[in-house]
């Protein structure tokens, strides 16, 4: 369960976020949709505690991301934009390192890593160094790394960026399977079709504000448009993000 209330954030004179309020529920996939520069990444960065909001509050499973950031971090798994691996460590070592940082004991960690390697189909390259991995392989390992401590909340920043069709499909299936285990999934994208295909709830962000939020049907009703695409354009005021 992720809740954001009236978040604002400026970088120098640039007001990246003006008023972001939404919530993402457990057992559902919530899509943060908006054109580039709308404030999606900044919102996620506040939620996964590497940035502090200027005003407003946010919490993960009730843990405030500013005042109780360690507890909030324990409850989340994060796949940041362009997540990098350690090139000199193998896939397995990359995942194991994060497990250790979460304080998982050795034997439990070994089992968990094996489980993730099977689940995400990493086996073939699990013991190779990450240096020469394809973008798809890197994303799989980064996702395994984010899931190693079995978080109740998963935050993904444009996870399908740079993936080919097969890798994108595999990732979508993975996200759906994770949703069915009852965890809360929040992911950002600027591709409307992707959000429409995957999300139970949609939060449309434009110019640092939430311009529409809810189930796809509700958004169509809210904007008075018959398709999600038209609703998106109506909400954002531009056609950016349509492919």
């Amino acid at each position, binding site marked *: 369960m992720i809740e954001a209330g009236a978040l604002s954030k400026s970088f120098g004179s640039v007001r990246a976020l003006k008023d972001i309020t939404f919530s993402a529920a457990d057992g559902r996939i919530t899509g943060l949709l908006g054109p580039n520069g709308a404030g999606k990444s900044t919102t996620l*960065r506040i939620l*996964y*505690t*590497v*940035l*502090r909001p200027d005003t407003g509050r946010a919490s993960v499973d009730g843990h405030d991301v500013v005042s109780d950031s*360690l*507890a909030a*971090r*324990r409850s*989340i798994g*994060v*796949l*940041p*934009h*362009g*997540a*990098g*691996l*350690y*090139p*000199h*460590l193998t896939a397995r070592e990359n995942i194991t*390192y*994060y497990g*250790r*940082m*979460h*304080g998982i004991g050795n034997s439990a960690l070994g089992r968990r890593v094996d489980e993730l390697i099977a689940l995400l189909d990493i086996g073939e390259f699990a013991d190779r*160094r990450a240096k020469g991995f394809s973008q798809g392989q890197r994303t799989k390992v*980064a996702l395994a*790394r*984010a899931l190693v401590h079995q978080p109740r909340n998963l935050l993904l920043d444009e996870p399908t960026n740079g993936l080919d069709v097969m890798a994108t499909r595999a990732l979508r299936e993975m996200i759906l399977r994770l949703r069915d285990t009852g965890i809360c999934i929040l992911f950002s994208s600027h591709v409307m079709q992707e959000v429409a295909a995957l999300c139970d709830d949609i939060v449309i962000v434009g110019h640092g504000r939430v311009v529409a939020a809810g189930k796809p049907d509700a958004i169509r009703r809210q904007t008075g448009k018959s398709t999600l695409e038209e609703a998106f354009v109506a909400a954002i005021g531009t056609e950016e993000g349509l492919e």
Partner: protein
Amino acid sequence: MKSRIGTVFRKEVLDNFRDRRSLMSALFFGPLFGPFLFAIMISFALDKHVSEVDEPLQLPVSGAENAPNLIAFLERSNTEIVKIEADLDSARIKVRDGEHDLALIIPAGFGENFSVGQPAVVRLVSDSANNNTAKDVRRARALLDAYQRRMGMLRLQARGLNPTTVMPVIVEDVDVSTPTGRSVILLGMMTYFVIFSMLMGGLYLAIDTTAGERERGSLEPLLTLPVPRSDLIIGKILATCVYMITSLAVTLLAFSVSLQFVPLEELGMTANFGPSVVIRIFLLMLPFALLGAALMTCVASFTKSYKEAQTYLTVVMLVPTLPILFAAIRTVKPDLSYMMVPSLSQHLIITDLMKAEPIPLAYPLVSMGSTLLLGLLLTALAARLYKREGILG
């Protein structure tokens, strides 16, 4: 919650160990460069020094038969006479064209003038613009002067005069440089080589801690882990220290081997570099690892990329030379207040250790204490810098 410093530390040591390029520069190029260069420089200096004293002077002489006495004197004074046939003009050309380094011309009238007590002229042809022959010219001139003085004295004595009547002033050279004193400049360079190789040893890891992690996109996920950022930075700085200390050990080992092959005594130097001195230098330098690691980490955290960090850190590597340079120019004597200055204090103590001079116990204690303290302050600063939002770039 248990500290994760150990986890971070082990991962960084392993990660850097597998990076062959950084490992080579940390444990091979950095530590061996200094001792190697040092040995070459000393051998070179030694070569020059020895040749100046021992090698016979090659002196081309035209008209040697005109002054058998002078020639005999020169030959006794370690000179090899090379007989040539030349008058003044042809000798000029030969010296200018480099066929001969210099030439001595003894005219036919030499013996006649000499025997009647008239000034007898010899001509020493040389090219003063040629630095390579300056040494030989100096030697030849000194020998000729010596011969002239000796003849002058003999003539005075023959006339019943005391030779000292024509020596109203006698200049005595008093050289205060001691054999060890002369080696100070070279030894001062050694301190810097030790510091340099230590910094090289930690360079890659220090950059990797901030700029490197950021550049490959692994910093952001790292910061979302439930681990205080101070644990991350301390683990990384400690791992950097391990490589710096390893590098220090390799350097000292390389120095102790290379110095065995260099006969320093022949240069009038004594360098005390036995096992006990090596161990004391090692212990003395230990706190510098923390200082260097924290300093490089702080500087790297302001940079945007690996390349930029490398550029800045090259400048940082020169900083420790400044106190050493100051010490060399001002010929600083060890003093307790200097022991507060990292790099300078290590330099002064190492120099004294190698000169086998007594060192008050307070010196190394203050040096290590102040260096460690500054290292801890910089570590705290690095941790603060790591907590900034700007660290994400």
